[in-house]
C-alpha cells in the first residue's frame, strides 16, 4: 500500500499494555482509547470513561491520564513486541473506553496492525452507526463484543444507556462474515449473575451467524483504588467477586443448553 497517511491520524489514548494474554489470541499489546459512551457501575477503568485528559492520584503522586498521539507513535511501541506476536500468533488489540467513538483513529490503528502483519482485535460494545463499524471491518480479525444484558431497561439503569443499537450491530457484524465475532459478558453480582439472564445473552449470541464462543468475565474490584484516585466514589461498594464454583456452574449450563463454547475469562 502506497498511501501511508493513516500513520498520521491522531487520537487519544490512556494506556498501552504489553504482554496481554487474556484478551484474544496469543501475546497481545492492548491500546486503550479514551472516552466511553456508557457509565457501567462496575467499570474497572474509570479513567477510560471521560474523553477529557484527567489527573489521578496514585500513591500520593499525580499521574496524568490521556495523551494525544499519532498512529505512528503508537505503532512504535506496538512493533517492539513483534517477536512475541510471531511466536504466538498474537498482535494488536484496541480497547477502551469505546474505541468506536474515535472511529478514524481506530480504523487507522487496525490498518497499521494489518500492515505489520499481526492479528488485530477490537474490544467494544459496538456503540456506533453500523456504517462506521463497516468501515473498520476489513482490518479486523476478531471482534470481542461486550453484551452485558438483554433487558434494555436494566441495561440503562446500570450502564446509562439502552443497548438496542448494539444488539442490532451485533447481528449485522455477524452477518457480514468479515470478522470472527466473540461475545463477552461481564458477570456482575446483582446485575446479571443469574442463570436466566446469562442464558438469555447466550441464546442471543447463539442466534448470531457464525458465533460459536461466549466468554464470561467474572466481576473484580481491581479498579476500586482508581476511583479514589480520581476523587470519585466506587459505585460497587464491597460487592464480592463471583466464586469459581458459581462461574463454572454458569459455564456448564450455557454449554449444556446452547451449542456455544463457553470460556471463563478472556
Amino acid at each position, binding site marked *: 500500500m502506497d498511501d501511508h497517511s493513516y500513520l498520521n491520524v491522531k487520537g487519544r489514548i490512556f494506556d498501552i499494555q504489553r504482554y496481554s494474554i487474556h484478551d484474544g489470541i496469543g501475546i497481545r499489546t492492548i491500546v486503550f482509547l479514551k472516552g466511553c459512551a456508557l457509565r457501567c457501575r462496575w467499570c474497572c477503568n474509570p479513567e477510560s470513561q471521560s474523553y477529557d485528559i484527567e489527573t489521578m492520584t496514585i500513591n500520593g503522586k499525580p499521574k496524568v491520564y490521556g495523551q494525544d498521539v499519532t498512529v505512528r507513535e503508537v505503532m512504535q511501541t506496538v512493533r517492539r*513486541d513483534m517477536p512475541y506476536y510471531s*511466536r504466538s500468533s498474537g498482535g494488536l488489540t484496541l480497547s477502551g473506553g469505546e474505541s468506536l467513538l474515535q472511529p478514524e483513529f481506530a480504523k487507522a490503528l487496525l490498518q497499521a496492525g494489518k500492515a505489520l502483519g499481526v492479528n488485530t482485535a477490537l474490544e467494544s460494545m459496538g456503540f456506533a452507526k453500523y456504517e462506521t463499524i463497516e468501515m473498520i471491518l476489513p482490518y479486523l480479525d476478531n471482534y470481542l463484543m461486550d453484551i452485558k444484558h438483554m433487558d434494555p431497561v436494566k441495561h440503562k439503569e446500570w450502564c446509562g444507556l439502552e443497548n438496542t443499537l448494539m444488539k442490532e450491530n451485533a447481528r449485522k457484524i455477524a452477518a457480514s462474515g468479515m470478522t470472527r465475532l466473540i461475545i463477552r459478558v461481564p458477570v456482575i453480582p446483582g446485575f446479571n449473575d443469574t442463570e436466566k439472564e446469562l442464558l438469555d445473552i447466550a441464546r442471543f449470541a447463539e442466534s448470531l451467524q457464525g458465533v460459536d464462543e461466549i466468554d464470561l468475565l467474572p466481576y473484580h474490584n481491581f479498579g476500586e483504588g482508581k476511583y479514589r484516585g480520581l476523587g470519585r466514589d466506587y459505585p460497587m461498594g464491597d460487592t464480592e467477586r463471583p466464586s469459581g464454583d458459581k462461574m463454572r456452574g454458569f459455564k456448564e449450563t450455557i454449554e449444556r443448553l446452547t451449542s456455544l463454547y463457553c470460556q471463563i475469562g478472556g
Partner: protein
Amino acid sequence: MGKKGFDSTPVPKTERITGLVADLFAKMPEIEPARAELITESFMSTEGLPIVTRKALAFRHILNGLPIVIRPGELIVGSTTLAPRGCQTYPEFSYEWLEAEFDTVEHRTADPFYISDDTKRRLKKVNHYWKGKTTSELARSYMAPETIRAMDHNFFTPGNYYYNGVGHVNVHYDRVIYEGLKGIMEQTADELKKVDVGDPNYGDKKRFLEAVIISCQAVIDYAKRYAKLAEEEAAKEKDEGRKQELLKIAKTCSYVPENPARTFEEGLQAFWFVQQTIQIESSGHSISPGRFDQYMYPLYEKDIEEGILTREYAQELLDCVWVKLNDLNKCRDAVSAEGFSGYSLFQNLIVGGQTKDGRDATNDLSFMCLDATKHVFLPQPSISIRVWNGSAKELLIRAAEVTRTGIGFPAYYNDEIIIPSMENRGIGIEDARNYAIIGCVEPHVPGKEDGWHDAAFFNMCRPLEMVFTNGVDNGEIASIQTGDIDNITSYEEFKAAYKKQMDYNIALLVNADNAIDRAHAERCPLPFESALIDDCISKGVPLQQGGAHYNFTGPQGFGIANVADSLYTVKTLVFEQHRFTLKELARAMEMNYGQGFDETTAKEAALQAAKVMEAKGEEISPDFIASIIKKVLTMELPEEERKRYAEMRDMIIDLPHFGNDVDEVDEIAREAAYFYTRPLPEYRNPRGGIFQAGLYPVSANVPLGAQTGATPDGRLAHTPVADGVSPTSGYDLNGPTASCNSVARLDHADASNGTLFNMKIHPTAMSTDKDLEDFVSLVRGYFDQKGMHMQFNVVDRETLIDAQKHPEKYAGLVVRVAGYSALFTTLSKSLQDDIIRRTEQGLYR
C-alpha cells in the same frame, strides 16, 4: 529424537518416592568427621611421595574406610554420610573457617549444619595436620599484595575455589556406563606402556597414570562394599519384596561401574557411583550430570524394546536418582553460604536441545526427567532445558507445566546463541552442539572441558564507587587513582575513568584466580576426576594441570543494571541537563541520599572507629561504641542538605531505567557489560586457556551488595545489587516483553561463561493452557532476539511474605534463587527479601 519419535505420557509417582523424600528431610543436616580423619591418616603415611600418588592413595583409603549405609526403600545406593543430607569435610582445601565457626554453624541463618561435640573434637584432632598445607594458604602466597587488598575491599571474591575444590565439570558418565571403569583402566594401561623413557615428563606421566588406575579400582571396590552390604541386609530382611530388591542391588553393585552396564537400572547405578565419588574426591560443587536424557537413552530404549523394562519402573528409578542427588550436601564458610544460600550443590541436569549432528534430541527420557522433578519436588538436580528452533513443542509445554508449579525449574537455555558463542571461543561445532550446563548457567563441553566456571564474583559497582572517591575506600587507597571527581568534565571522561577502574580490578581478579589455579595444580591434582575428562589420560596430565581438551577460567560479574542506570544518570542529569554536579552526586552517595544508614553499617562504622582507637592505645567503653552507632543511625544532616539529596534521588528514580525497552538506556547497558566482558579474554590461565566472562551472581548480589555504598542509580547503601543481567527489582514496569527486550539488547555471546535472567511471574499469568502457550512464546521471543538464559519464579508476593512469617507452614516451598532453586525457608532473611522484591510480571488491572 529416538528412532520412533517419543512417548510423552506421564507416569504417576509411587509411594516409595514419597517415603524416600520424607526420610531425607526428617532431620537437620549434620557434619560427619570420617572423611577428614581418613584423608589425614593417609596423608600422614605417604609423606614424601608425589602428590598425585598421595591423592590416589588417600582416595582409596577414604573409599575403603567411609561408613556405608543403604537407606530404607532405596533402589539406587551410595551415601556419603550416615545421616541423610549430611556432609563430610575437606581440610586439604581449608579448615580454619570451620573451626572458627564450630559454635555458630548450627545457628547461622544461611545453611545451618548440626555438629556434635564428638565431631568437633575429632575434626580438631586431625585438622592441625593441614596447617600450612592447604590450597588456600598456598594460593594466598601466590597473590600480589594489591590483589589481597582488592579482596579485602570487596571488589571481588574468589571464595569458591579459594576455600574449596573446583568441581564445575561434566565428566564422561557415558564412558563409565558404556565401557565400564575397566575400559578406562585398560586405556590408561595402554598409555602407561607408551610413555617413552626419553619423555621429559616421564615421571609425572607415569605417576599420574598409575594414580588413575588406583583411583578407578578404588571406586570399583567401593561399589563392591555396597554389594556385600546389600547381600548381608537381604539375608536379614523379612519382607520378601525388599529382600529381592536388595539381592538385585547386590548383583548390580558387584557388576557396575567396573563393567559396561547391561540394563537401564545398572546404567543409573553406575552413573550414581560416579556422581557421588567425584564429590568425595574433590569437594567441588556444580558437578553436573549434564545431558542425562541423551546418555541414558540407549539403555532405556534397548530395555523397553526387549520388554525387560516398563515406563513405570523406569520413572521410579529416575525418581530414586533424583532423591539421591538431594542426599549429598556441603558445608561452606558463613560468607560463602550467603552467596550460595539454600544448601545447593548445583548439580545441573539438562534435557532436550540438539544432537552432535544438529538434530532435535528430544526423547522419552527428556519428559521423564522433567516429571521426576515434579515428583520429588526438591532443589536437586538443577534441571534445565535446551531450546532451539527445532525443539519439540510438547517438551516446551511440559517444561512450562513444571515452571507453573513454582519450583523455579527448569531454566531455559538458547542453543541459537550458546552454540555460536562457544564456537567463537574455539570450540568445534559438534562439541558446541553437545553442550551441557554447569552449575548455574555455564555452558560446557561434556567430558572435554575444565572451565573453571564460577571462578569469582566481581562486583561492577565497586569500581564505579572508586571513580567518585578517587580510589579511596574507608579512608585508605584501595584502587587505582583516576583523579578528583571535580576534574571530570564530560560523560566521555567519566566513562574513561570507570573503564580504568574496571581494567585495574579485572587484572587483579585474574591475578587472584591464577594464584588459586596454581595452588590446585600443585596441591590438589584429582586423578579420578581427571580419568573422566579428555585428554588427561592421553596427555598423561591431570585436569588441574591443564590435561583437559578445553581450558577456560570463567569469573562472573554482576550489577549491570546498576551500572547502566548510573551511567545514564551521569549522562543525562549531570552533563546534559546540569541538574547537579558530579561532586554533589558524590556527596549525596556518601550521605546515602540523606536516608540514614542501617544498623549493620552503623555497627561496622563503630567497630572501625574502635579499632583505630585501640591501635592508638586508647581505652574503649561500650558507651562510646553505642554513641557512635547512634550517631551514624540518626546521621544528623542539615535539613536543607537532606532535602536536596532526597530531591536528587527522586530525579534519578524518575529517569527511564534499564528493563523498560528504552533504546537509549539499553544501549548503555550493553556498553556497561562490555566493560567487564571485553577485557577478560585477553588474559590466560596457567592451564593454557583464556578467561571468559559470565554475567550472573548466584546469590552473591545480596551479601556483596551489603558491602557496597550508595550508587548513582539511586540505589541505597548496602542494599542488594541487581542480579545477573536482570533489571533492578521493581524498576522494570512495562511488562515481561519489555524487560526481555532490554535484556536481549546485551551482547550475550560475549559473556560465553553464561548470563542469568530472573523473572518473577504472577501465578494468574500461568493458569490456563493458553497461558502456557503464551509463556513458551515469551521465552521463544526472547531467544529469537539472542537472549541466552531465562528462569522463573511463579509465586505471588503474598505467599512469600506469609512464608517468611510462618516458615513451618511452607517447609516444601521451593523458589528460584539464581542459577538454582532452594527451599525458601532455608534462605537468609535478606535473600528472601531480595526475592520478594523482584518485579512481579503479568498481573494487571
